[in-house]
């Protein structure tokens, strides 16, 4: 997932963005100046000279200060950090930047306007304390508002982008899940068997088709229900095994152990499916003589233990060359367990420890107290 398309829109060049914001501030400054000149019936030239100079200077020092301070604050950030967050220094720093930026911006802007108009409007330093405070406050407000708008807009864009990414990932996962369950090799081999059976043994062909239908129906609807009874889970596994048995014959010897008192326990649908598939695909199918496949459920210390065990090829080969599908299958079981039960559930894949060899997959899930 991490290697696929970048989650956020490609970042634009910071200088271009800076200039773009400058242009916007220029427009806003022009409007403010026009309003001031209209409301206080000042001369247009004076209003524009002071309005524009002070606005632009304040913006320049606040926005420039933000970038400079943000760069300094994040100087140790990893190179792959999200560039948008790298341009935001955090509120405490930002407030400092606004106050200092406004002070410098106002003073320089005022000086610039005095020089343009030839008048002598008092700056902050040359006014008395009360006047200075008033000037500062009036100048701070637009800076604060602008900063807040900038900040929340950035956050909105970010969260939108994140939501989009999450949606796409969910869709991709769904597709991968379906692909791993409807594995093409299994599908076409089954169809090939079906084609043969139709000619030589129609009743068996019908049985195989029914199993196939049950398997497809279960696979396609698995995502709709959160849980189903363990007995239903075992029935789906039995369907799948029966399907594989038609293909593999004696090489697949299944054994399903479900104690009656556990039959009604709720489990996530098709949780065992990928484990059974792995046991057949990597344990028994590659093994010349095939072997046994044992699926069992037991209660132990208030937990439900589901075991899928084969007497096939064993872990060393299965683990060192796991195909993408296998890894995805296991990872998918783990993810589902984590989502549903947090740390209380687990999946372990170990070498079976008796003479028959093979692999043992153990799922532990907590039994909810009724």
């Amino acid at each position, binding site marked *: 997932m991490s290697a696929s398309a970048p989650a956020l829109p490609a970042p634009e060049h910071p200088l271009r963005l800076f200039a773009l914001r400058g242009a916007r501030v220029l427009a806003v400054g022009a409007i403010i100046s026009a309003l001031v000149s209209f409301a206080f019936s000042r001369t247009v030239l004076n209003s524009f000279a002071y309005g524009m100079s002070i606005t632009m200077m304040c913006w320049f020092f606040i926005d420039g200060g933000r970038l400079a301070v943000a760069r300094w604050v994040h100087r140790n950030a990893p190179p792959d950090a999200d560039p948008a967050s790298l341009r935001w220094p955090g509120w405490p720093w930002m407030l400092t930047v606004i106050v200092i930026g406004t002070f410098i911006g106002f003073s320089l802007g005022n000086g610039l306007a005095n020089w343009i108009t030839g008048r002598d409007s008092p700056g902050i330093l040359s006014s008395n304390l009360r006047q200075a405070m008033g000037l500062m406050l009036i100048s701070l407000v637009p800076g604060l508002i602008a900063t807040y708008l900038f900040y929340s807009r950035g956050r909105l864009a970010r969260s939108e982008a994140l939501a989009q990414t999450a949606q796409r990932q969910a869709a991709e996962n769904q597709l991968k899940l379906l692909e791993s369950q409807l594995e*093409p*090799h299994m*599908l*076409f*081999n089954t*169809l*090939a*068997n*079906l*084609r*043969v*059976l139709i*000619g030589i043994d129609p009743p068996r062909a019908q049985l195989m088709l029914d199993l196939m239908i049950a398997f497809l129906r279960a696979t396609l609807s698995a995502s709709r229900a959160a849980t189903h009874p363990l007995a239903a889970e075992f029935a789906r596994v039995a369907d799948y095994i029966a399907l594989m048995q*038609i*293909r*593999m*014959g004696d*090489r697949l010897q299944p054994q399903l152990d479900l104690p009656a008192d556990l039959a009604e326990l709720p489990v996530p649908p098709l949780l065992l499916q990928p484990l059974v598939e792995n046991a057949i695909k990597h344990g028994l*199918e*590659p*093994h*010349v003589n*095939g072997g046994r496949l044992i699926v069992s459920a037991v209660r132990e210390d208030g937990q439900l233990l589901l075991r899928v065990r084969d007497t096939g090829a064993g872990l*060393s*080969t299965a683990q*060192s*060359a796991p195909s993408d599908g296998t890894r995805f299958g296991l990872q998918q079981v783990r993810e589902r367990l984590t989502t549903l039960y947090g740390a209380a559930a687990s999946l372990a894949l170990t070498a079976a420890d008796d003479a028959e060899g093979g692999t043992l997959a153990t799922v532990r899930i907590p039994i909810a107290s009724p």
Partner: protein
Amino acid sequence: MNPTALIAEDEPLLAANLQAELARLWPELEIVATVGHGEAAVDHGLALQPDVMFLDIRMPGMSGLEAAQALAEDWPDESKPFPLIVFVTAYDQYALQAFERSAVDYVLKPVQPDRLAQTCARLKSALQQRALPQAVPNLGAVMDQLRGLLGAAAAPAAAALRVIQAGVGNAIHMVPIDEVLYFEAADKYVRVITAEREHLIRISLRELQPQLDAQRFWQIHRGTIVRCDAIASALRDESGKLTLILRGHPDKLGVSRLYAHLFKGM
């Protein structure tokens, strides 16, 4: 004499079906054996020397591709020409591309009668060509095809291994990769031979190979990979068989005909 064929397919129903379809499309073709895994395909193939072999790609143990490789390496020189090989697969997009590229014949499962009829026609004409008096042995062309397929089937290179960790009792011996003279397959294990001693590691040669630097470690047989710096010379005997002499080690290594092209004077 009627042409003969061998079928290697692990699913009994599909094997029976292929046999039945072939009987209908090509009644003269005599199926001399039907086997369920790769090793049996090699054994029966060498023993019965059929004209045509249908090899399922995904079989227990040795795959169809590996079986074809083993057959090509062990095929006796003074015997019938190498069998015409047809691969059979349910679904394998990468293998199919490789088949197309190497002009190897294949059939997809479920077997479509029309497609199988085309294959039969091609096989018949190839067998007729072979029967002509001026026909040349085809092993060279088969080798080229197999080399193409094996190259395509090779897994992408993982990070190259620097040290071989060999467990001996309670100790793990660290063998720098530069000290290894050659690797030799031994059932599910690999023998690691250095100038001083040898170790056994629990991995198959097939799993080990992608972890080796292909520039330095050359496969010379399906069961042997040698460090090329360790080769002193390659000798060719009267029958054309290549043998490698190593630096600082008495072992002599046989090069299979599939890899003989690696050794030629500059």
